[in-house]
């Protein structure tokens, strides 16, 4: 439930940042499908959890260290939305200036995603396909196992 609310909120943030395509995806995937899949997974694994003997202190130390290192890494970043930032200097101007002539699709996100970055998107589709097959393999193996042992 919290995941779904979080996704809808971040979809609102993306709309505020004028990234309508990303907001669309976040609302549909994060707010819709993954909430349902999360609930489905919860109903599969049941309500009870075995009491683990985890080392909470060690985990807190590792998480704090990793977080501190990540924050330290952001110190070198250019300012948020800075026009001189490398991301705005490299290929983005070409996409913005040339895509109406080269691709001619009004939605620039689509032209970057499908045409300039066609390989990336092909890889993403392959990843989704592979993930689907992986989940199917895992869950169907579980079912077959159950059918073999109806008594247990």
């Amino acid at each position, binding site marked *: 439930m919290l995941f779904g609310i979080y996704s809808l909120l971040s979809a609102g943030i993306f709309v505020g940042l004028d990234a309508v*395509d990303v907001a669309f995806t976040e609302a*549909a995937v994060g707010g819709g499908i993954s909430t*349902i899949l999360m609930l489905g997974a919860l*109903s599969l694994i049941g309500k009870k959890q075995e009491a683990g003997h985890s080392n909470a202190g060690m985990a807190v130390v590792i998480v704090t260290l990793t977080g501190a290192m990540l924050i330290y890494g952001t110190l070198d970043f250019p300012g948020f939305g800075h026009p001189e930032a490398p991301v705005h200097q490299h290929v983005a101007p070409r996409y913005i200036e040339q895509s109406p002539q080269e691709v001619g699709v009004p939605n620039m996100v689509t032209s970057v995603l499908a045409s300039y970055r066609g390989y990336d998107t092909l890889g993403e589709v392959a990843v989704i396909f592979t993930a689907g097959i992986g989940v199917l393999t895992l869950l169907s193996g579980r079912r077959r196992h159950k059918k073999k042992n109806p008594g247990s």
Partner: protein
Amino acid sequence: MEHHLVLRVVAKLMVPLILLFALYVQFHGDYGPGGGFQAGVIFGAGFILYGLVFGVDRAHRVATPGVLIAFAAAGVLLYAGVGVVSLLLGGNYLDYGVLSHDPVHGQHLGILLIELGVGTTVASVMITLFYAFAADADMEFTDDEEANE
């Protein structure tokens, strides 16, 4: 689920609208926000809503798991196939400009086709995942009932 009358009536009204909206997002992605991925997820969500309200068995009758797996593979193949066709027509892999006499028109055609491939794969995989989870969840419930008896 036989007794949720309001839910069933509302879902019956919603599902066609969701599927129609998914198709709009799919084929209007060039001009407005959206594209194959979003359309596939929305299309899948329509099916999942149907499956949740009317039961997975009835959803199975609309889209059988085997057909879905075939569609998921077909989407990836369509995408990769567009790349191969552009190779054969003398361009680079996934260079849609050679698909038509006018490069811009070729780009339109290529993007439309690959977005269709993306949408097909995403929708099929989403529905397949839902089936996989729902089938096991149903078994869990029956197991629990048997255990209670």
